[in-house]
């Protein structure tokens, strides 16, 4: 049995027939072809799969695709506009906020929501805001710097 879902992803309308048990992350990666969100743990701890659902971040490994029916999704691929990097992307690049890059798409999406909620966060608020995203490479310090830099740039 397949179910029809219609949703907006990065500003584009998509309609697909999906199995009810298909996870949102697998729908995005394998049906829509957006490889930016990654699968790091399947238990909603690592946050590599983070996307925005109606402007709020969700762990797309812990939702079914059918739950996103009729909703609006933004992934890392939708951050840059007209070939211009989003200020958060620029900030992560400038501040060396990534090493292997696997956690980065999720980090960027979480940062976006964090700065929307709190445009001038303190270091502590940034660290708490990023608690749902694991990074094994950076020790987080350059990520915190990147979020601060994006905050200054009005990201």
């Amino acid at each position, binding site marked *: 049995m397949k179910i029809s879902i219609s949703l907006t992803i990065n500003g584009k309308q998509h309609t697909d027939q999906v199995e009810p048990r298909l996870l949102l992350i697998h729908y995005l*990666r394998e049906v829509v072809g957006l490889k930016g969100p*990654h*699968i790091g743990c399947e238990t909603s701890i690592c946050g590599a799969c983070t996307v925005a659902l109606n402007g709020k971040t969700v762990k797309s490994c812990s939702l079914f695709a059918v739950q996103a029916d009729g909703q609006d999704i933004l992934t890392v691929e939708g951050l840059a506009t007209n070939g211009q990097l989003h200020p958060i992307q620029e900030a992560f690049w400038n501040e060396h906020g990534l*090493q292997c*890059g696997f956690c980065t798409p999720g980090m960027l999406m979480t940062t976006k929501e964090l700065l929307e909620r709190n445009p001038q966060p303190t270091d502590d608020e940034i660290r*708490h805001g990023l608690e749902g995203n694991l990074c*094994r490479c950076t*020790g987080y310090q350059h990520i915190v710097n990147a979020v601060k830099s994006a905050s200054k740039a009005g990201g």
Partner: protein
Amino acid sequence: METTATKTRAPLVGKRIRRLEDPRLITGTATYVEDIEMPNMHYAAILRSPYPAAKINRIDTHASEQHPGVVAVFTGKDISHLGPVPCGVSLPDLRIPNHSLLAQDRVYYVGHPVAVVVATNQYIARDAVDLIHVDYDPLPSISDPEKALEDGASPVHPEWPNNIAFTHHQEGGDIEKAFQEAEVIVKERIVSQRLVPSALEPRGTVSTWNSGNQSMTVYSSTQIPHILRTLLSQVLKLPEHKLRVVAPEVGGGFGSKCELYPEEALTAFISMKISKPVKWIATRREGFLATIHGRGHVDYYELAAKKDGTMLGLRVKLIQDVGAFHMLLTPAMPTLSVLMLPGLYRFKNVKADVVGVFTNRMATDLYRGAGRPEATHGIERMVDILAAELKMDPVEIRFKNFVPPSDFPYDTPTGLSYDSGNYAAILEKALDMAGYAQLREEQRKGRENGRLIGIGLSTYGEICAFGPSPALPTGGWESATVKIEPSGQVTVMSGISPHGQGSETTFAQITADELGVDIEDIVVAHGDTATVQHGVGTFGSRNTAVGGTALFLALRELKEKIERYGSMLLESENVTYGGGVCTCNKTGTCVSLTEIAAASYKASKLPPNTQPGLVSTNYWEPPNFAFPFGAHLIVSEIDRDTGEIQIKRYLALDDCGKVINPLLVEGQVHGGVAQGLGQALYEQVVYDDTGQLITGEFMDYALPKATMVPTIETERTETPSPVNPLGVKGIGEAGTIAASPAMVNSVVDALSPFGVRHIDMPLTPEKVWKLVQKGGKA
């Protein structure tokens, strides 16, 4: 031809420049293994043993095979003709059990692969794994390495009842004399617990067989594509020239992807069987169950000294928890520990007895630091324990025992030759930066008010830039090819296989400076055996020191060739290449690299004894390792009521020789420290008494989060290495090696009023709270 002056600009080496790798990574357009798609892709899923030890009576795959979408199910009997998972180490009494790709008649650890299902999609493959019925007879198992050595312990491998996997003995100086002359001897049992490396990208592989030309391509999340190709060729019994291995974007490794894992060979085998591409991606649970673990030491230290704090000798018994099988370098891990036992200190007497022990657990092997964190943790803890015994300041005892700068190159009692260093200078700098005297005063006052403040140091040394080839089963050299394309842009092909370190950027910096080209005109390629000449790969903090030096040599050679072409085009014997142009030193006339490149490929005229094109390949065989060092200092405070540890300051002072890109060096230090603190404070692999893995997910294994790592104050000294022409050492593992002893020393210092002398990691609040409650008695 022009007469313009040579283009001059500031060198890029030494500059904080942002990375060339990042645009693809921040836009979600990088290609990791799981992102690879191919027509007719099939998906493998693996059935793993739920028992730590059991006899397999029968495997019934019928229901699984009949499941719609399943193409095939393979068990041990199907792959018994293939080679085992290799161990690359030789030691005189090493016992290497047969480590077949899938279990044969017995399973040896929870997670041992038993069968593999291949299906048209991953959901079906996982469903069908659950339809395989295995009839097991559970057997007694052993999980604790010390208990495994006791008489009557259950043998992991029945053929070796004492569970000893190997022994290793090393001795330097006269240890008996040192202990006879000792005025004080301190002893401690120090555990370096098992850890899960936890690269954020799980392991994964895609294999595709081309039956037409009988060739195989394996994409794998690996740190060693060329070595993996050689090993796969042996395991699969395929000719190596028909085998291509690609390490695409790799999402972290930390040593855990320096292996041939069964799944890499299994997907290749299945692809040949079904003539379709086959993908397997580890679940995070498989990352815990069936990806190598790090550390796993129980070590007994005895340190002999004079009453004035002069250290005389170190005697150590090291117990390495091997797990059920060896992986590629497992037995080498504790031998690396032994090498670094003397740390930065000049005592000349060392004796180490290593025993590797089989247990019914996943294998241990390389994890960031690989043997050196265990040794550094040991010696740095013992120095503090000795200082406490003698009521000396831990700083004073270190200054007293450091190898002085005048003694380099310094021969250690473990057979190494430390290349260069100034240990007192970096410690002095750290103490200045910390305001050490004032910190001690604050601590004293705080104690009067009942506060538990600790100041902990580690003055670490490490061995890296692996390394001279005789020291490594893989060879320790590295390669580089530099190709100036006909249009003048530059392609560098390096035998290293970076996966987050930023070597595409640092190598482009070196290239830009040597050739005088813009960094945008350079691409650094790596990780594909079909395009890159043979190389050794990325581990042991070797990228820049070994791979960078090979690149530097190739660039030097290429510049000579450019000058030969320049000389021909300028019709002058007296030319110099620099800043992107070749200039006649007499007339000032010059010709650009673009023009030279075009002429070299057009080749209508060639300089004498010169071939067409501008390509150079070179190799670097390092004559020695390199030895970074540093001083890390942690100020911590313990909450009496909860046992929680707050890191108030973390100072990381490192000397990694010459620095190519300070921004990237800081990134490596931060990340390394976070992993060292992970071991010190949070992380531990727990198998219960029945051999079940209790910490099997990120839900129950405490990987540090952003709130759990402090802000790190970094500073450097710069002592060039004489081992290579770049003067570089290595920084990938330093932070991890330095952090754990500094953290434990800090907490023990905080608890010293209770008489606490040692605490094993991780320093959980529960453990600390109990010590506070019981007045220091564990």
